[in-house]
């Protein structure tokens, strides 16, 4: 332990516990367990039961997954003042990844049961945590929507081409499609949400690929659609 180090003062400056009063900080300091790790030492392995979460006082921790082929994929590197592994601490599931100290590190460990017990008594602490988790949730939801935004145009193009080519083959009009499902159903089919689908339709329309009027879609540029559909064309 570094002399002159105050756990409550340290906690007061972390994002997870900022804004809490001294009584709360003291209670948290009392349940925290100081742990020292050497460089290269494992903190926990992927698949182990989530026994609590960690906060780094000083040091650096690598959180990573190992694929079935033995390839390491680093998810995140945490530093001073940051916390990790709080998810399994709350949902009681296993650690979804492994953690190793990249250098000599001094951590504070908050055991799951004791921490949950503290939350049950301290509303302000619980509310603080609610905000932290809500922020994570928004971040993840945004990340997924961003990824969707990249994939949905290709999937939609494939869908439109498929639909325009099915039906009566003697009349090869690639030009007009009548959607017989709602936009909400179409969004779900393409693995996204209505808002994202709406944006994608808008862009395709602006780019002159299609003209959309309610559930009637005119394909203006079939070649352009095929390019967008890329390697997803089915036989």
């Amino acid at each position, binding site marked *: 332990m570094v002399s002159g180090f105050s756990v409550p003062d340290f906690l007061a400056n972390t994002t997870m516990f900022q804004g809490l009063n001294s009584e709360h900080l003291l209670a948290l300091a009392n349940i925290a367990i100081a742990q020292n790790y050497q460089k290269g030492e494992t903190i926990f392995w992927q698949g182990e039961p989530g026994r609590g979460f960690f906060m780094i006082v000083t040091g650096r921790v690598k959180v990573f997954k190992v694929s079935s082929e033995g390839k390491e994929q680093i998810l995140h590197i945490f530093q001073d003042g940051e916390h990790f592994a709080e998810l399994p601490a709350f949902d009681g599931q296993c650690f979804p990844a492994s953690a190793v100290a990249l250098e000599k590190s001094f951590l504070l460990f908050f055991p799951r049961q004791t921490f949950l017990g503290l939350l*049950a008594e301290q509303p302000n602490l619980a509310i603080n945590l609610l905000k932290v988790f809500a922020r994570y949730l928004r971040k993840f939801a945004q990340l997924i929507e961003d990824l969707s935004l990249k994939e949905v145009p290709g999937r939609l193009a494939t869908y439109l081409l498929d639909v325009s080519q099915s039906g009566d083959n003697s009349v090869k009009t690639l030009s007009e499609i009548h959607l017989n499902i709602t936009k909400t159903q179409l969004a779900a089919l393409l693995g996204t949400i209505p808002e994202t689908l709406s944006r994608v339709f808008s862009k395709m329309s602006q780019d002159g690929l299609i003209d959309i009027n309610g559930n009637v879609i005119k394909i203006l540029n079939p070649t352009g659609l095929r390019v967008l559909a890329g390697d997803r064309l089915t036989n």
Partner: protein
Amino acid sequence: MLTSVDRLLFVRGVPIFKELRDDFLVRLASVMDELSFPENYSIFKEGQEGRSLYILVSGRVRVHLSDRDLAKLDKGACFGEMSLFDAEPRSATITTLEPCECLMLTQMQLYDAIDETPGIAVNIIRLLSRRIRELNQKLNAKEASPSVSLSKLAETR
């Protein structure tokens, strides 16, 4: 006027409250206000700071940005749920398409309930963590899939 059973059913329909303990649900349902809105009324606008969740009890609303429609919502739908925990600007405008009735829960009401019963927060945090975990897995799957289709393409060449 909704009965307490009706309220409970509507509140249980909110994704973050779906698996909340029954007694917590009853507690939250009992403090919510019932609001009536006329047709063509904007319940909240894109960019406004919001700290309340709404559940549509009757009527239909459209979710839109200025003049571009993003979605239409029916009875049972909820909007603004995440603003219970932070005060992010609303990401879209909600305008009624016909006269509507809503249940509303404000951040203040939720915090008061938590003050009395901290277990509510712990329960919600658990649900949020589970949701985060699911989204995390979804994210990993999405990030993995481009390489899957590339390798499939390689096999066909």
